[in-house]
């Protein structure tokens, strides 16, 4: 397949800057996710790569070849949208065969049959081939839509929230299948979503966009464990990361409006006097011999885990524990905070990195 590179791409719609000097490269065979809230510029990025929009500045490359002047058809990309763009009166087979019978990519009927057989097996839709697409369920239609992209063997797959119209259970099932298919077939894929679970689970790498700017690029682990800013930290993880106003005080880190004093490790002496402390809910765990006292103010059992709200002074910390917690509202608890997993953010909202190797 193909590598994709965007170099210094800027796109304006009248007075609105949709993308502001965005650069990134997608490796051959990579599952690359564009993650961000509505209006971040994700779909615009995808449409520029497809050739459906033209950038105002910058260049786009496929395999080091500049493709700025190529038409969408010449770029040979396959797009999958949120809406199922199928021909309702055609059978599933004819829908899948359609791109292979087009003048630009015409294949022999034998080969068409072979490719469709292979693709429909992967997507578990081989039993639907003779069905009219109007009679399919939402999940089946989206499988056919994805099948129509795969069957073409394009240079690049471009997917714009393809799962977001499906109900939660179906979305989960198809997400896992999509992951399996992409990892075993290895097609370069650029996937747009606002759903952090989709991004974390599917991506080889994630590019986080906000208001037309690229905020962070990294693996799912990078984005989750080392968010570059408060914005990114809040974007991934449920429940959301605890963000606490804090400051340095007599060799300790003090969380405002609480009695919490964390020991200050040698490595964070570079911290500003006041900052925002980020703690993921799973890094706060009740423990009989825990270091800090608090009071349980709310319990939300989710089955596999339980969200505990722990009141400390005027602060409420969100803690995530396994299984059903054997606690009641009002209980006094002791708890620990995983001190090697703290996140520090400065007043500008950006991460203040502390050198791990100096940790005592």
């Amino acid at each position, binding site marked *: 397949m193909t590598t994709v590179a965007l170099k210094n791409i800027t796109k304006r719609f009248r007075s609105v800057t949709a993308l502001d000097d965005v650069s990134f490269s997608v490796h051959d065979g990579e599952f690359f996710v564009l993650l961000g809230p509505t209006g971040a510029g994700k779909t615009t990025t995808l449409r520029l790569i497809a050739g459906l929009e033209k950038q105002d500045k910058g260049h786009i490359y496929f395999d080091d070849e500049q493709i700025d002047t190529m038409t969408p058809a010449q770029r040979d990309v396959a797009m999958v949208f949120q809406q199922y763009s199928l021909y309702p009166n055609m059978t599933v087979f004819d829908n899948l065969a359609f791109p292979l019978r087009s003048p630009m990519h015409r294949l022999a009927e034998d080969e068409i049959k072979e490719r469709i057989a292979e693709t429909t097996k992967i997507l*578990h839709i081989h039993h639907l081939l003779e069905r009219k697409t109007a009679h399919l369920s939402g999940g089946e239609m989206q499988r056919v839509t994805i099948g129509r992209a795969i069957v073409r063997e394009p240079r690049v797959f471009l997917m714009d929230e393809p799962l977001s119209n499906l*109900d*939660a*259970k179906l979305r*989960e*099932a198809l997400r*896992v299948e999509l*992951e*399996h298919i992409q*990892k*075993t077939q290895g097609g370069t894929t650029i996937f747009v979503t606002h759903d952090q*679970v989709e991004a*974390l*689970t*599917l991506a080889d790498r994630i590019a986080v966009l906000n208001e037309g700017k690229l905020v962070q690029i990294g693996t*799912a*682990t990078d984005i*989750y464990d080392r968010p570059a800013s408060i914005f990114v930290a*809040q974007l*991934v*993880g*449920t*429940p*959301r990361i605890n963000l606490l106003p804090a400051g340095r005080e007599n060799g300790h880190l003090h969380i405002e409006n609480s009695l919490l004093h964390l020991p200050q490790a040698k490595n964070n002496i570079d911290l500003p006097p006041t900052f925002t402390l980020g703690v*993921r*809910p*799973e890094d706060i765990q009740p423990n009989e011999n825990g270091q800090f006292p608090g009071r349980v*103010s*709310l319990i*939300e*059992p*989710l*089955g*596999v885990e339980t*969200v505990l*709200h722990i009141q400390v002074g005027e602060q409420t910390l969100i803690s*995530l524990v*396994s*299984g*059903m917690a054997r606690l009641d*509202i009002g209980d006094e608890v002791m708890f620990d905070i995983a001190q090697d997993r703290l996140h520090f953010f400065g007043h500008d909202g950006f991460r203040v990195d502390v050198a791990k190797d100096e940790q005592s």
Partner: protein
Amino acid sequence: MAQISLRQVEKRFGEFQAVQPVDLTINDGEFVVLLGPSGCGKTTTLRMISGLEAVTSGRIVIGDKDVTWMHPSDRDIAFVFQLYALYPHISVRKNITFPLEAQKVDKATIKKRLSMVTDLLRIQHLLRQRPGNLSGGDKQRVALARALVRQPAAFLMDEPLGALDADFRETMRAEIKRLHIQQGATTVYVTHDQIEAMAMGDRIVVMSAAVVQQVGTPADVYYNPANLFVARFIGSPGMNLISGKYADGIAHLPGNNRLNVPEPWRKSISNQLTGDDIMLGFRPEAARINGQGALRAEVYASDLHGAYNMIHLSLDEEQDEAMAHVRSSRGLNLAIGDQAAFDLDPEMIRFFDPHTESAVVLEA
């Protein structure tokens, strides 16, 4: 506050059965969630309790009053809709006090109750504004305040968080629950979101296709689902369900896997199964991948969910349904195609009859 009883309450729209006869008692001060997919009858049930929809048959009792044929406004309930339903042209203060003024409550009482609900919901600073200028969350708080200020016998809420974005839902979910704990008002809450139901409900009424499937605490519906529908619907992902054959204490599963059925289950399975088909059920956290595990499967996909990994296992690649999703620590990294062995926590194994779709109940 009051207890709400439904006795053989049923709703038909012409030929269409929207709600099959249901018996349900919601205790005084209880938070009960009606949960199910769209079209399951949960909103119709709520609307019958409120009086916005007439029952086809059956009786509804709130407190000691039979309200079956009472007008909604005589039932002493407050309804919170998904849509904020605020008057856009009058102030927040007026929006909140309006129901009291309509009931001719005296001014001093209105003032007292207003200050109580605005304290509770932390919206004192919004009182002079108009709803149009507020954020979605603030609008929802005002809508809640307007319901609370009346101090009704019961609250009925129809997907009140449905219009909010994901982050804010989490916050408001906790806030409504906190409010309930402080006020102790009998509440019936409708949602299609099982996470919301689990997090908020004292008890959950799971509905599907006009029928109540199970009534229980969050722990009941999670650990002991009454049938396959509840097993699949609760949890994210739902319970792993693997089809097999049962004979002589062994469940024969796809991929030539054999599960030694724990002794206490054997008699119940023999008594309750209608044939030799069985379905094994277990939650994703009930499986432990380790070198010595008795069950074998191939890794279909493996992904990071933030705090944990999820490993998707295929027991038999010829059977699409023979998949198990296993929750594991982030330390465990497996590649697609790897062989994995796993064990199940014997306390967390469940069985179902695929023909009746009912859970096998452990007999004493």
